[in-house]
């Protein structure tokens, strides 16, 4: 069994002049061959070695979306170090809040190096007292340094398949992030199994606007292209958000065959595609919906809008994935329309799956069968397996499960049930296919990123006019954008300026978490419903909000 650096070198030797990546940003196109990818990654490897980085050292990479992400990350692997991407502060996020949020994380994981830009390091030093993590600035100079003073064979090329290759930081917005440790063996095995599930071949090419700090952009798109030696067409996530049709332009121009998107992105593309513009998307084998609850009507709208572009329902697919399993857990079968169950909404609310009887049916999209080697078990609250069709927590067993959360053995133990991993997601299995129905905890998935209600509520605390501890952040479906949006219900002090409260709540959450709040709903003191233990109930208040109980 080989390693990722070995695979990288082998592609550089066998197909030096083939294009690894076409990188599209700000109207410019940069083409990177496999030889260039390897050489530039080696330059970073030498840079790290000169800084004293050794095998097993953790490197946090905090860069904007440029090809330096690729070189710095693979360079760290070549140096035998453990790289981890962290999100770059969003344009609306205040740098001091960003770094204050990361202070606890940095203290816990103690990276051997932070690689970022000079201005971002200045912000870190200004925000974190006694900031003393070794840091380095990523720039073009690194690629220009001569290679004659370094070892011929980078340390990472002699790594063992069971060494930790990298770390993905999983859900959570701040100090709660958990570093998911993955070995070379696990990543290579997952990529091979998932590639089999989608019939991936050397002629495939992937178009992606996804950030690399998230498993879908990192593993499904970037790592797959590196490991399989195929063409990646990469766009900047921020630029894509403003101009979603850039992705369609890229697919058409480069004849991309695969594209992974969270559910909201399907709708965003439809909403923002000009009615008078047509594309040829016939090269696409599959758009794969992942990382958010997938909706039937989203697929219907997408297929209808792009029918003349060559998109049919048979090309729209679903995967269930998580960083703890490298990426893929299940995948629907390409070439076949995704199965949709019409279930009875009342029975479903009560916790069981029954065919719809009345006029109203709840459509649930299948996430497909598990990929090779993965097994699923649905468990009740006591951890007992439930029969097919029964809703419970999704547990997985897999040959490419993670090696635990970095420096958090108690968090790892909380999620493991012997060799099974308890995902925290709810769902059921029917005829061998998985259907995901929700989360156990209070995590909200907004535009593909994870936020916790309690973090949003903590950011709201202290806003003038909001009663301390009397707010609740809930996720609701916005019909217009077809995305999950966050609504904050706040109990306000009598006589306060509710417009001002709303504005301040939005500002605070945007600055601290980089998250846009859809609506702030003021309610009178005492209106929010509590649980029997005296806490404000997110579920109950969400239900009341959806029913319109808090409308003026």
């Amino acid at each position, binding site marked *: 069994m080989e390693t990722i650096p070995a695979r990288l070198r082998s592609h550089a030797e066998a197909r030096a002049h083939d294009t690894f990546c076409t990188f599209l940003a700000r109207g410019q196109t940069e083409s990177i061959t496999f030889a260039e990818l390897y050489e530039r990654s080696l330059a970073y490897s030498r840079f790290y070695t000169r800084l004293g980085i050794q095998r097993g050292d953790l490197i946090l990479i905090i860069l904007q979306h440029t090809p330096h992400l690729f070189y710095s990350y693979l360079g760290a692997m070549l140096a035998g170090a453990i790289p981890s991407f962290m999100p770059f502060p969003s344009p609306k996020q205040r740098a001091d809040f960003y770094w204050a949020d990361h202070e606890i994380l940095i203290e816990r994981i103690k990276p051997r190096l932070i690689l970022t830009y000079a201005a971002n390091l200045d912000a870190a030093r200004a925000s974190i007292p006694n900031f003393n993590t070794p840091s380095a600035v990523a720039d073009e100079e690194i690629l220009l340094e001569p290679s004659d003073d370094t070892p011929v064979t980078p340390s990472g090329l002699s790594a063992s398949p069971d060494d930790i290759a990298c770390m993905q930081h999983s859900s959570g917005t701040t100090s709660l992030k958990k570093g998911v440790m993955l070995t070379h063996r696990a990543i290579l095995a997952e990529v091979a199994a998932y590639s089999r599930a989608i019939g991936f071949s050397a002629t495939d090419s992937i178009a992606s606007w996804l950030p690399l700090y998230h498993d879908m952009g990192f593993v499904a798109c970037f790592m797959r292209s590196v490991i399989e030696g195929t063409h990646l067409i990469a766009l900047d996530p921020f630029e894509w958000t403003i101009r979603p049709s850039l992705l369609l332009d890229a697919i058409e121009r480069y004849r991309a065959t695969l594209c992974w998107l969270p559910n909201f992105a399907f709708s965003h593309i439809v909403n923002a595609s000009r009615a008078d513009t047509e594309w040829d998307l016939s090269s696409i084998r599959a758009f794969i919906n992942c990382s958010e609850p997938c909706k039937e009507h989203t697929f219907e709208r997408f297929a209808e809008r792009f029918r003349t572009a060559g998109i049919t329902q048979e090309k729209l697919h679903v995967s269930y994935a998580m960083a703890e399993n490298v990426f893929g857990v299940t995948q629907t079968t390409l070439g076949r329309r995704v199965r949709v169950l019409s279930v009875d909404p009342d029975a479903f609310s009560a916790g069981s799956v029954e065919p719809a009887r009345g006029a109203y049916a709840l459509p649930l999209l299948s996430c497909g069968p598990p990929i090779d080697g993965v097994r699923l078990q649905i468990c009740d609250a006591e951890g007992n397996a439930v029969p097919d069709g029964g809703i419970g927590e999704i547990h997985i067993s897999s040959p490419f499960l993670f090696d635990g959360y970095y420096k958090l053995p108690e968090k790892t133990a909380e999620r493991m049930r012997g060799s099974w991993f308890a995902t925290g997601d709810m769902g059921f299995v029917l005829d061998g296919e998985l259907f995901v129905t929700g989360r156990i905890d209070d995590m909200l998935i907004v535009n593909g990123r994870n936020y916790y209600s309690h973090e949003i509520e903590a950011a709201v605390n202290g806003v003038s006019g909001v009663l301390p501890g009397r707010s609740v952040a809930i996720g609701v479906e916005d019909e*217009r954008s077809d995305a999950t949006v966050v609504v904050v219900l706040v109990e306000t002090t009598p006589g306060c300026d509710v417009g001002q409260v709303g504005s301040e709540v939005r500002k605070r959450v945007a600055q601290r978490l980089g998250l846009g709040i859809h609506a702030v709903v003021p309610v009178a003191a005492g209106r929010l419903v509590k649980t029997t233990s005296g806490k404000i109930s997110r579920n109950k208040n969400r239900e009341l909000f959806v029913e319109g109980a808090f409308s003026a």
Partner: protein
Amino acid sequence: MERVRAVMISTFRIPGDSKIDDATSSADIEGWDSLSHAMLIMGIEEEFKITLPFDRIYQLDDVGALVRLIHELDSGSPAAPSGDVA
């Protein structure tokens, strides 16, 4: 400013008499998030037949900055503040 205001009312589906002035920002308008920001930019570009430079779009802190950028692109020179029209 009136044309910007009309695009905002249509994009965010807010009441026609909503207070919108130079200082209005995303924090003041319900539903103005990163996705609807893209729709606003698209609406502005269609209305004024211009293309807003990507690197400037994320620097827009408020409506006044947006209006000034439109004037700049329309006339090729920086413009004066547009004033309160609410």
